[in-house]
């Protein structure tokens, strides 16, 4: 299958289709990605959410923000506040800021999502209100949603054999399942298992790559402002990538059973001591 590769929102993307993408499709895809970055990036001064860091206020977000913020509402509730799109300030305090200073000022809890922000779907936009200065970081589910947006754009234009790969987030459609290796969180030359991905999304979350100091990585409990220590990696299969991405992050803080009360998904969760737990359907996926 022809591949179309590019770099966006801080990661490498590969789109594989049975028929090559047209110039128009590539342009539409580039616009979708650029528009997403322009809306949510905390690394850009001109993003839609940037003014909220300086002062509370109201911003207009695209209509697609509603399902994303709704997912965050649910994950925030189920994780007891650990998953929170306002975790940007905690990451900044730990040194993962827009200037990449990597100078940690210590853990700092993020403002409470439910108390500090509210949103409403209004026609073709989503209106977001904040009551304190906040720094958005939608990393928990945002990349997954962008995978979905790219996938849906190409699906709508007729592509049926299609894989969108954004590094740790994958969405697949087509007659042949993909064989996907689950990368070992402590050794990127190894895998801990292989699973078939067929007409679903698979998202991985691991704490190994974005590290900038002893115990400092990008998966931060917004309730405490501290990086998570016990879970080393989580993989989630779900119908869409946004949900799979959000759940993969939530599994760092939340019992799978709690999440299963409101979401349909399969998972593998690996701990820093080398143990792993997984849902029934994932039996046989891990090497033994």
């Amino acid at each position, binding site marked *: 299958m022809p591949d179309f590769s590019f*770099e966006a*929102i*801080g*990661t*490498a993307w590969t789109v594989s289709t049975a028929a090559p993408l047209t110039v128009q499709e590539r342009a539409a895809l580039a616009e979708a990605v650029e528009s997403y970055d322009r809306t949510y990036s905390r*690394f850009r001064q001109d993003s839609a959410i940037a003014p909220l860091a300086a002062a509370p206020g109201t911003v207009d977000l695209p209509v697609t923000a509603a399902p994303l913020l709704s997912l965050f509402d649910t994950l925030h509730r189920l994780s007891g506040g650990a998953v929170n799109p306002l975790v940007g300030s905690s990451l900044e305090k730990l040194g993962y800021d827009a200037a*990449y200073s*990597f100078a940690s000022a210590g853990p700092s809890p993020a403002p409470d999502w439910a108390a500090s922000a509210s949103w409403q779907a209004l026609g073709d936009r989503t209106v977001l209100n904040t009551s304190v200065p906040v720094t958005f970081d939608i990393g928990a589910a945002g*990349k997954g949603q962008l995978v979905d947006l790219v996938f849906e754009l190409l699906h709508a234009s007729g592509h049926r054999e299609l*894989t969108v*790969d*954004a*590094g*740790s*987030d*994958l969405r697949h459609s087509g007659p042949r399942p*993909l*064989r*996907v*290796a*689950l*990368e*070992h*969180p402590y*050794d*990127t*030359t*190894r*895998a*801990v298992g*292989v699973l078939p*991905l067929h007409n679903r999304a698979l*998202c*991985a*979350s*691991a*704490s*190994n*790559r*974005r590290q*900038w100091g002893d115990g400092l990585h990008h998966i931060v409990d917004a309730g405490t402002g501290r990086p998570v*220590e*016990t*879970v080393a*990696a989580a*993989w989630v299969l779900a119908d869409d990538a946004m949900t799979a991405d959000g759940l993969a992050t939530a599994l760092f803080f939340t*019992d799978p*059973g709690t999440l299963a009360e409101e979401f349909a998904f399969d998972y593998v969760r*690996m*701990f820093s001591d*080398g*143990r*792993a*737990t*997984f849902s*029934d359907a994932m*039996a046989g996926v*891990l*090497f*033994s």
Partner: protein
Amino acid sequence: MTPTRKTLLFAAASMTLASTACAGTANDGASAAEESPAAESPVRTGSYGDGTYSAAGSYIPPSNQTEEVDVTLTLEGNVVTSLDVQTSGNNPTSKQYQREFTSGIESQVVGKKLDELNVDKVAGSSLTSSGFNKALDAIRMEAAS
């Protein structure tokens, strides 16, 4: 048979409590049906009376907050028919491990070389942006100079 209730006390150093409880020596001598396991055998054998057994254990994790673990199991015909593990979970980390211990399917991870696997894709942590990596490189160089 009326289940009898016996208490075993042991100190545990790790979270392998349930297996310790299942295979542990019944040292209260309350039932003639219990036989001491063969000492030389690594696999404990012997028969235990039907009934409900409970045991309390404690251990000290790195957090230095003592954690209590209560294990209750029911034996019928030398088979464990029910197992209940109650944990104190004083420390959030302990709580998470204990929860994993008491639920879900668990295995020990085994890694295989990626280049020996025939796969289409690899799912792991995302490759990071050039911005992130360049900034880290710059800091490393600064630190080294």
